[in-house]
């Protein structure tokens, strides 16, 4: 018995040693087979629109296919969990908006830990949104909207893509910071909400896909949710410019690996992504979907996850948003 234990122990030791050398060898030759890039949402949405150009660019840069795999479900939890539990060998990566990392864990018990389960690699895009209002309300600027909402508490209705999504959180932020009352109606996804916004059934939304409708004069853009203005709408101010502090938060996307992925691979990927983000081709691609790419080091992303989580938790508590 004792002999068997000893054998098992030495076998385990040998295995660890072997795994160690294998890991470094892996990092040097990585990637020598296709890399799976998991997006935790159904195909066709914003995550897809950001993820696919990146998968294509990375495939070209590394000479190995980066295969997009959409694993939707449970508000992004299923796909995110899949990566958290995947082998940390650099061949399974996650591309996700901040929701699964800095919002969901405050609202629900998630089967992963946003900090401990992942090693951040790079920030790949900030989706710039804005608040839009239906012309039937009769307001044209943010101060007018706030004045209107103060005079008619609870009369305005906004639609969101669902509970706990950025489309809800940002308008709740506005309500909290300015003390106005706007009724929330949750939808299944923003397309669903847009169906009711265009005829004016609901009057307000925080969305990016509506910008063509703003250009067509069907909706009015009140502000930009970003630190800088949008070149397509140079006259529309940011929330900070409007005097509403700490509310200009974009939806930000990042690529992460499961914890334990060799440092070399992470560094290699980060370097390449930062380099690609500066190319005109990638800038143009992101520009058409209203995405900007800030460059960040892995350690900066880890810190930002903490900051964003705290900020969202504060808002979720103040606005009394509950899921379970």
């Amino acid at each position, binding site marked *: 018995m004792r002999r068997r234990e000893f054998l098992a122990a030495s076998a385990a030791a040998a295995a660890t040693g072997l795994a160690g050398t294998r890991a470094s060898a892996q990092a040097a030759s990585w990637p020598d087979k296709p890399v799976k890039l998991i997006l935790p949402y159904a195909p066709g949405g914003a995550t897809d629109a950001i993820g696919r150009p990146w998968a294509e660019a990375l495939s070209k840069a590394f000479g190995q296919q980066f295969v997009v795999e959409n694993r939707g*479900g449970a508000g992004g939890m299923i796909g995110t969990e899949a990566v958290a539990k995947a082998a940390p060998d650099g061949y399974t990566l996650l591309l996700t908006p901040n929701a699964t990392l800095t919002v969901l864990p405050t609202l629900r018990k998630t089967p992963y830990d946003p900090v401990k389960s992942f090693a951040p690699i790079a920030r790949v895009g900030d989706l710039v949104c804005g608040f839009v209002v239906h012309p039937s309300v009769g307001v044209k600027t943010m101060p007018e909207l706030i004045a209107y909402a103060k005079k008619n508490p609870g009369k305005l209705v906004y639609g969101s893509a669902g509970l706990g999504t950025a489309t809800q959180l940002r308008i709740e932020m506005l309500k909290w910071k300015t003390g106005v009352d706007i009724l929330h109606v949750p939808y299944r996804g923003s*397309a669903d909400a847009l169906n009711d916004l265009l*005829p004016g059934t609901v009057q307000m939304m925080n969305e990016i896909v509506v910008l063509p409708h703003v250009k067509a004069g069907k909706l009015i853009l009140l502000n930009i949710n970003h630190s800088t203005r949008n070149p397509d709408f140079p006259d529309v101010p940011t929330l900070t410019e409007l005097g509403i502090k700490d509310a200009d938060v974009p939806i930000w996307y990042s690529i992460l690996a499961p914890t334990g992925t060799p440092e070399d691979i992470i560094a290699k990927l980060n370097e390449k992504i930062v380099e690609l983000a500066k190319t005109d081709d990638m800038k143009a691609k992101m520009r058409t979907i209203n995405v900007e790419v800030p460059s960040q080091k892995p350690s900066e992303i880890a810190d930002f996850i903490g900051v964003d989580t705290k900020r969202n938790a504060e808002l979720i508590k103040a606005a009394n948003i509950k899921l379970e």
Partner: protein
Amino acid sequence: MEDFFTNLGLGFSVAFTLKNLFWCFMGALIGTAIGVLPGVGPVATMALLLPVTYYLSPEGALIMLAGIYYGAQYGGSTTAILVNLPGEASSVATALDGYQMARQGRAGPALAICAIGSFIAGTIATCLIVLAAPPLTAMAQQFTPAAFFSLMVLGLVLAIVMASGSLLKAVGMILLGMLLGLIGTDVNTGNTRFTFGISDLFDGIGFVIVAMGVFGMAEIVGNIGNTERRDLLSSKVSHLYPTRDDMKRSSGPILRGTLLGSLLGVLPGAAATLSSFASYALEKRLSGVPAKFGTGMIEGVAGPESANNAAAQTSFIPMLTLGIPASPVMAMMIGGMMIHGIQPGPQVMQQKPALFWGLIVSMWLGNLMLLVLNLPLIGIWVKLLMVPYRLLAIAILFFCCIGVYSLNNLATEVHFMAFFGVLGYIFVKLRCEAAPLLLGFLLGPLMEVYMRRAMLLSRGDPYVFIDWNNQKLSLGFLIVSLVVVVVLVLLPNMRKAREVAFKEE
């Protein structure tokens, strides 16, 4: 009218290039192929092919993606008819009489009428898009949450019409379907319901999983346990193509189905799916022999199949005119546009007229290709039924599992399908019909969402559903539902006729 011809001319000049014709054909071909494979749906296929479209022109990419969609809609009815496997919600109604026709050796005419009906519906719906896209968009926007709720009520009433057996059982199945539909996360509160903490259930159970379980798998198990039933399948295949009488009986249903489908197709989500069920219920009502529906009536195939194809065409309207994806498939189309740097929205028609009209004309061409492609294939499909059932059954089960797995890459969902297979077998033994269950499953959760949304918007005032001034549509649907219920169920002589008809079976 001059615009109409200029636009159409532009469309033809784009769609008729050799390259685009090729992509249109490829799309229709791939679509048919995956439609025939049970469970593998257009969404998964389009997602798989999105990276390929990088290398095409935007027109070619969208033409191919669209081709996959209507090809799949078409192919889906092939398995519905041959082996009772509706791979899409829209082919459930087709399976009801189509499969019975196949069992009587009339698979050929059933498949042919599908192809012909789909082509006619596609042609008319394409003309409608060209002529009336903006007014149809405006019509769709008249639908408030209250109106959608009432439309769903009407839909459930139709489910009662569809059922051919016991009324009580039909209502029971609808209710059970609605309960199953409630599994998942509540949109309004975020509560998870009936999920037992399993995260794979947080988004509910997919329609395809339930449909393939209660229809396909249950049928296979039923056939294996019953040699007589099984032999029916391969015996006495008569003529391959519809007779003159078949064509005559189908022409009315095809036109009515096209109209229903074109109108409902513009609405988002399950409203489009409703069109095939609505057409089936309508044909059953109009028929002189409603009791024979469910036993292999060609009207029950022609109507729903035309409706579903017309709806598939007009469902492009909100995507093209507003940039709103009414279904996951349309979301994929939008994804395809964004890959090419085109922002979907109302400006597409003005800024990219070649793309817009080219795509629309390609839809008609695609439908023509489907017809040419599929009429000769019918003979091969029918031969497929000659394959010994012990082999066919295994092949079907195998493809079902692959198909369901491909939805979300989840093995758990294959287990769910097996569960519904067992449930479906029990239903067969209890003589409970699965179609009302599926309609309840589809409409129940939507009804809840729309009802609560309407109530939220009215600040809790239930009057919103019958408000003559602001909610005429909602009131109208509710009145029609009431009339149908009264006429069908409560009038004693009708009820008697229904029961007699049931006993005759």
